């Protein structure tokens, strides 16, 4: 079954320019105050440059597996994991782009990139991704009741092209992550210094402002053709997002939803990467606890990122991408690259810990979550995109049967994984991305 949903932009076309014409949406309620089923949440967790497969995959069978060095930090959460063996990023072997570009642009879109002139190893070889990303498809379905349909937070995402973006509202519509924790916090939770009068005043002004501005954009778009028009309409839909949010009440702190202290921190400093990452995870967790969003992405650096993770030991002198390219026989460098990936697993474990620390209903926030660890390659030194190092954590409210190492017996694709994820989030669609690679759910996960 396939459901065609109008996109936000379609809606906008039907509605004309002013989202203000919509009736006021009922005021937001925190998830834990809601009756009936608790809301499900999903967080994508991206790390770059592949993994070290022989230090990643567990030993043993479906339930009696032993965690590998890289996944050892997740031992405490073993019963919440699904380690997904033998899932390929098959679509990422076709279409424009070099290996990293295809892997990144298709990481969450699972369809071929557009033609374009982003220079990769392959030269003028690729444009933006060619379709909507899975997080955004889910956000379209489950994100309409929260202040933010989705949140995209980054940690030193230093590339502004197809190798630095995984979230897409549609073909050619990348969503950049916010790299600065302080700016992210203010955007999501509001200015901690502002009074409620000031906030109300700002809301009224913004409504009037955006009414005028959106009208300007629409009139201009009507005079334009093709790409220029498309570009302005993307801008208009971005304004509509803000306008839509103005219709709702802002965050109401209380219960588990609490302000957090975010220190000013230089979001570009590699040596502060652990601190920046932790702040971004804290913000993401609190945004979920406050039910400000139900769909999140945490993007750790970018494809081909070559930052030196000196905080993991003084002997680490080469950047992550360089380490990832070392030969399998280069034992010291393989060990260092393993250490980098262990560290990423520790971050993933921290995120789980934080979500488990927030009570919700009879259990914790984590019970209603699924976290998905993705990468743009399987292995750095040969750019393999088969047998991707996918791990999920959390059952999404009992949907997934966790605590298992599930190895697919026959060819399986990340399109199928995303079909499973959208089903877990309540979207009854059996396709995602390019249908050529999409054949129902990934078997054996529920």
């Amino acid at each position, binding site marked *: 079954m396939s459901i065609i949903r109008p996109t936000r932009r379609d809606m906008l076309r039907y509605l004309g320019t002013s989202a203000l014409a919509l009736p006021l949406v009922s005021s937001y309620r925190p998830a834990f105050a809601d009756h009936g089923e608790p809301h499900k949440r999903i967080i994508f967790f991206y790390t770059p440059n592949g993994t070290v497969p022989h230090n990643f995959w567990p030993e043993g069978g479906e339930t009696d597996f032993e965690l590998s060095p890289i996944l050892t930090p997740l031992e405490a959460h073993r019963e919440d994991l699904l380690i997904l063996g033998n899932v390929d990023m098959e679509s990422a072997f076709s279409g424009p782009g070099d290996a990293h570009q295809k892997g990144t642009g298709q990481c969450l879109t699972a369809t071929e990139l557009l033609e374009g*002139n982003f*220079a990769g190893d392959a030269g003028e070889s690729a444009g933006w991704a060619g379709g909507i990303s899975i997080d955004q498809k889910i956000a379209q379905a489950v994100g309409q009741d929260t202040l933010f349909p989705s949140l995209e937070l980054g940690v030193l995402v230093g590339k502004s092209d197809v190798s630095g973006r995984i979230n897409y509202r549609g073909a050619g519509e990348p969503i950049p992550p916010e790299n600065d924790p302080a700016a992210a916090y203010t955007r999501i939770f509001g200015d901690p210094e502002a009074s409620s009068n000031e906030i109300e005043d700002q809301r*009224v002004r913004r409504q009037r*402002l955006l009414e005028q501005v959106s009208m300007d954009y629409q009139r201009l778009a009507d005079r334009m*053709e093709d790409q220029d028009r498309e*570009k302005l309409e993307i*801008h208009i839909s971005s304004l509509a997002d803000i306008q839509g949010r103005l219709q709702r009440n802002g965050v109401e702190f209380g219960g588990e939803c609490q302000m957090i202290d975010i220190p000013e921190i230089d979001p570009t400093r590699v040596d502060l990467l652990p601190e920046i990452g932790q702040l971004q995870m804290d913000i993401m967790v609190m945004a979920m606890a406050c039910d400000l969003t139900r769909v999140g992405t945490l993007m750790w650096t970018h494809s081909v990122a*070559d930052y030196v993770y000196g905080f993991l030991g003084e002997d680490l002198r080469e950047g992550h991408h360089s380490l990832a390219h070392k*030969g399998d026989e280069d034992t010291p460098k393989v060990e260092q690259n393993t250490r980098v990936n262990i560290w990423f697993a520790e971050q993933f474990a921290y995120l789980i810990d934080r979500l488990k620390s927030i009570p919700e209903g009879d259990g914790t926030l984590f019970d209603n979550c699924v976290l998905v660890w993705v990468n743009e390659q399987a292995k750095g*030194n040969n750019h393999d995109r088969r047998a991707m190092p996918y791990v999920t954590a959390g059952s999404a409210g009992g949907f997934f049967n966790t605590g298992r190492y599930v190895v697919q017996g026959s060819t399986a694709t990340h399109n199928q994984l995303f079909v499973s994820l959208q089903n877990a989030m309540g979207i009854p669609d059996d396709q995602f991305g390019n249908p050529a690679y999409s054949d129902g759910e990934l078997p054996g996960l529920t």
Partner: protein
Amino acid sequence: MKTTAARSVAWGAVASLLVAASSCGGEDPDEGISIGDPGPSPLRRLTRLEYNNAVFQIFGDTSQPALAFAPEETALGFNNQASALVVSPLLAEQFLTAAENLAVKHSPTILATLASCANATSLDGGCTTQSQAWIRSFGKEVFRRPMADDEVTEWFAVFSDGTALDGGFDALSGVELVVAGMLQSPHFLYRVEFGRNEPNAEGIDELSPHEMATRLSFLFWNSPPDRILIDAADADELRTPEQLEQQARRLLRAPRAREAVRNFHRQWLELEKVTEVLAGIGKDTEMFPDYDPDILPLLQQETEGFFEFAVFDADATLDTLFTAPFTIVNQPLAEFYGFDAPGATEEQFVRVELDPARYSGFLTQAGLLALYAKPNRTSPVHRGKFVRERLLCQIPPPPPDVVPEAPDVDISQTTRQQLEQHKTDPLCSSCHQMLDPLGLGFEHFDAMGRWRDDENGLPIDASGEFIATTDIDGAFNGVVEFGAAMGGSQQVRDCVTTQWFRFAHGRGETDADDESLALVREAFARSEFRIQELLVALTQTHAFRYRRVPGQWEEEQ
């Protein structure tokens, strides 16, 4: 100084090369304007730099608010490419926040000039007249063109609503709302062009005078037009090639042009990586005990400063950039290199003469050489790739989807010896023959980018070879020979021209641009390849002067 006659000859020469020879510039009233195809002119969004320059121009604001924006999406190596720049909800919100902050900051000063409103207790006749006049003049500055009457009416309504937001009358609030709104308008954030609305039969139109003023100032200053340009636009004096040339030369003389030229070179050669990427990678401090990350921004400044000096102070020709036996250093840089630089201080950069047997223009400056190196050894592959892609405008073929695993490093061999496998393994050699022989010419410069006599005691062979170029194929020995060949190469000249074209127009070149590009190359050659003349020539093309009219221009079948 060039004359009209000289240009006419050039136009004729270009036209004779082309089948579609029309009497360029000759406007026969029976046939309408005969003008060439300008190629596409996509809608361009301001970059962060341009935004900051614009708010400086409008308010004198130096806070650079756009630094907090999501960085530009880069394409073709530049951050001003129309096709890549899109607006996400995050960026739209950053525009909103910046506009509100600027409005709060600068509206009191504006209101102080509107006495009839500042002292009013209601939106009376005096305040109405004065605020409308202000909206007209402020809007012209922000939108970089005169406002239409109905626009003034609309923004006055915004002003009026703003004054009444809290129930009473607050003129400041009205000013704030207009300022914050205009700074988010597409007419500010984008460079909107509609032309003169006098298209010829092919659906090609001239730019309106204010659109032309905007093109000129953004090209040479990365900034909105100044008063002189606006006055010239008001008087419709930005139309003929002569008028454009005159303005181009004036703009190039101003200090702001220096920053734009630095911006171009920073992006073309990716000089920011020297600071940003190298800082994250660093150097092996056992091998380079004096390595200090603080030198990295200075290395970037050295190369940027060199280009600025060469283009403006030396009125350099292209080959000078590749061969000049001098550089520009301050005291810490002089120490870093071990150069004697009398007069240099921490702040003061000075020109130092270098040994022409070793040094060759920007090619031997340490920043790029250190960037395209490992922490502990050089990387001829990356140096070669840089030359091939950025300086020769050639794209190496893509590596296979699954590349073989990299060999281990043996430090008892020279770097050249370690790269031998690239020659013997056919899977490697198809690509690496394009890269390694170029990069190996730089082997006398170590991983820190400084001259070395030997490599860990082993003798250095800095011979290399150009292959697959259009005009300089052959062997060379060392970077001085390399630089001389590059500086005189037509392929390099064409590459530089192409890069400037992309930077100037915010898009890649298309087949329709052949005539425009040929015209620039012609003028560049006539000037014996002086960079400033290349820049002036960019304003003389079809691509710069005209635009296709949406709905009227149709591609020929």
